[in-house]
């Protein structure tokens, strides 16, 4: 027998006890909202960086061979055209920019002859990245100096125009001209090919497991296997694709090389377990009375599946498939392994063409050397802004896919109950 509890054990109004609950609730709420905060921060950072790319400069001609030189309006960028009187530009610069570094042509005299202009062009092109601006036009050299608002190299453009520019241009070594056209095209190719491979295979495998395999060791083994496949790091699939598809263990005739085929098959295998698991779950929601009714009417097993089980499981399957495909679109590491890493300045022409993909291009641009100190401040046009634009394109693509999945799920929620 336990001794009777002492009355002091019962203290329902102990302060710590009353305080603990709300405090803990608050801690939980804070923890949960970190997710929302991070999402907001992430979008904010990406959009801010992206918008930096939309800023152009108001160029103002302040000196030329014809007009009289004058100081630029306060707050405007200083642009000097090289056909203005000798040495004048630099005097204006020095008066205006006070101690700021200027593009040095080594002479106070600006070039006049064609040969000299060529030499200056070469010199200026070597100054990349041009923290102070130097732009070379067809027949003249435009110099600018001072703190630059936005990017004097580019005109002002709206966010949509910038996105459009990014989608139009191919991969480039110059961030002002860089874009994602090759990557987007490659990703769409991959998407189409992965869809063609992994939907039939994944759905079929799930049907086999749910409708044909009796519960037992065999089914359990495959089930455990699929669960483990879903947990294999994506880069390991990349290694599989590299050895099996790209190089075929050195058998030249079977090797696919760094083609879309290899990339699509690798991604297809990667999302296969996800599709199988989602399809299985969808098939499980189909009431067994439906199957039994069809079987009782003399339908064969396949007829039951084709005409009754699949149609009522389609919304669930579709949701799972779209989510799996959106995972495939965002995968980078396996594609790097199977050879999408190279900068490909052309669009893929067919499934056995070399390619690059949107996330891979984002990675390449994000990895370009950049000046850390410039982040958050106004600076020259950087690859960061291009990468941010690419991420926006990727997120919009993913959001569209996920929204489609959610709409399908909501529209067909509880398709057939009994």
């Amino acid at each position, binding site marked *: 027998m336990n001794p009777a509890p002492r009355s002091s054990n019962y203290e329902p109004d102990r302060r710590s006890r009353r305080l603990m*609950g709300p405090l803990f609730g608050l801690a939980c709420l804070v923890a949960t909202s970190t997710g929302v905060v991070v999402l907001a921060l992430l979008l904010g950072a990406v959009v801010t960086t992206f918008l930096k790319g939309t800023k152009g400069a108001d160029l103002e001609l302040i000196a030329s061979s014809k007009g009289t030189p004058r100081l630029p309006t306060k707050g405007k960028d200083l642009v000097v055209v090289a056909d203005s009187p000798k040495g004048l530009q630099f005097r204006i610069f020095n008066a205006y920019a006070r101690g700021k570094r200027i593009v040095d042509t080594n002479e106070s005299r600006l070039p006049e002859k064609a040969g000299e202009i060529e030499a200056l062009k070469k010199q200026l092109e070597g100054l990349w990245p041009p923290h102070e601006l130097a732009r070379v036009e067809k027949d003249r050299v435009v110099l600018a100096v001072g703190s630059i608002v936005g990017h004097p190299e580019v005109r002002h453009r709206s966010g949509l125009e910038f996105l459009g520019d990014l989608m139009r241009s191919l991969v480039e070594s110059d961030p002002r001209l860089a874009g994602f056209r090759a990557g987007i095209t490659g990703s769409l190719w991959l998407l189409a090919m992965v869809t063609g491979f992994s939907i039939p295979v994944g759905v079929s495998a799930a049907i086999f497991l749910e409708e044909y395999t009796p519960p037992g060791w065999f089914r359990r083994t495959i089930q455990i296997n699929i669960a483990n496949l879903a947990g294999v790091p994506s880069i390991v699939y990349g290694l599989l694709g590299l050895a099996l598809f790209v190089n075929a263990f050195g058998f030249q005739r079977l090797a696919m090389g760094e083609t879309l085929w290899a990339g699509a098959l690798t991604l297809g295998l990667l999302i296969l377990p996800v599709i199988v698991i989602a399809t299985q779950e969808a098939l499980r929601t189909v009431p067994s009375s439906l199957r039994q009714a069809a079987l009782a009417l003399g339908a064969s097993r396949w007829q039951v599946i084709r005409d009754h089980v699949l149609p009522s499981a389609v919304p669930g399957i579709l949701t799972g498939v779209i989510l799996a495909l959106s995972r495939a679109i965002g995968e980078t590491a396996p594609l790097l392994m199977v050879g999408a890493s190279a900068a490909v300045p052309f669009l893929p022409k067919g499934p056995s063409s070399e390619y690059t993909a949107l996330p891979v291009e984002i990675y390449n641009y994000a990895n370009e050397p950049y000046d850390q100190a410039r982040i958050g401040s106004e600076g020259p046009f950087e690859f960061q802004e291009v990468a941010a634009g690419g991420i926006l394109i990727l997120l919009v693509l993913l959001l569209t896919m996920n929204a489609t999945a959610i709409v399908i799920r909501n529209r067909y929620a509880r398709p057939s109950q009994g």
Partner: protein
Amino acid sequence: MKALLDDMAAGPPHRWTGPTPFRQLRERLVFVFLLVCAAITILTTIGIVVVLGVETFQFFSKSDVSVLGFLTGTSTDLEESGPSPKFGILPLIWGTFEVALGSSLIALPIGLLSAIYLSEYAPRRVRAVLKPTLELLAGIPTIVYGFLAMLLVTPVLKAVLTPLGLTVNINNALSACIVVGIMIVPMVSSLSEDVLSAVPRGLREAGYGLGATKFEVSTKIVLPAALSGVTASFILAISRAVGETMAVVLAAGMSPRISLNPLTSIETMTTYMVAVIGGEATVGSPKYLSLFAVGLTLFFSTLLLNLLSSLVLRRYREIYQ
């Protein structure tokens, strides 16, 4: 109605004579097709094991590196001509461990608290907003998290820690830990929330009936009851952190180093692979083959974690009627 009666009087239009040969053939073909598709999932596993195994074997036979040396070596220098005999995976394992440890220190508490909030505290409306948001976070590609580390986390760390006299490398392990930690929060919270919600209501109500507060019910009744599932979700999340590539590449860089300082660049098993493949290793060279040796180590580490997770889930699950 009359037409129906007439039909019935006329007898069945078609007498059932068993399945036709065509139908039998079709059934068989469909069965074979489905079987092949299911077999592909098994073949993938076999493929991964064979590919990693064969190439790893080639790595050890083609280079001077012994298995023991590989597991204990502290240098990851690999020349195209051949590796130094001191080549080993230890710095990579250390880097991986650092990222896994750091990110779980962030993700496990946050994830667990979010799960408790969602399952015990949140009003239905709040839950309806928060849950999809967390799912959305889980769907964001990891490269985006890596970009976030470069763009936001590292500059903030720099701004905060530099005045304290610490030097923050552009690529550092800490920012990798932070972004990977944030990345795996949704995994912990959604898996844990599932098991917490599955704890039967009667248990909670018995607790309340005995005079327990909400805090006591959550932490002393619901959480212990769901402990196996929560632990399993923890292990899965750690496994995910171990296999994470792109976020770590962009945040932590690729310099192998065994160091306790989280503000310097490190290299993990995954980022080593990216570094080697970025260096255009010739197919069949020891450098190329070392990818697979490291890959095999990675594969086994995550496999062990995943198996452990499902073991915990099955072995220690409390089953309620």
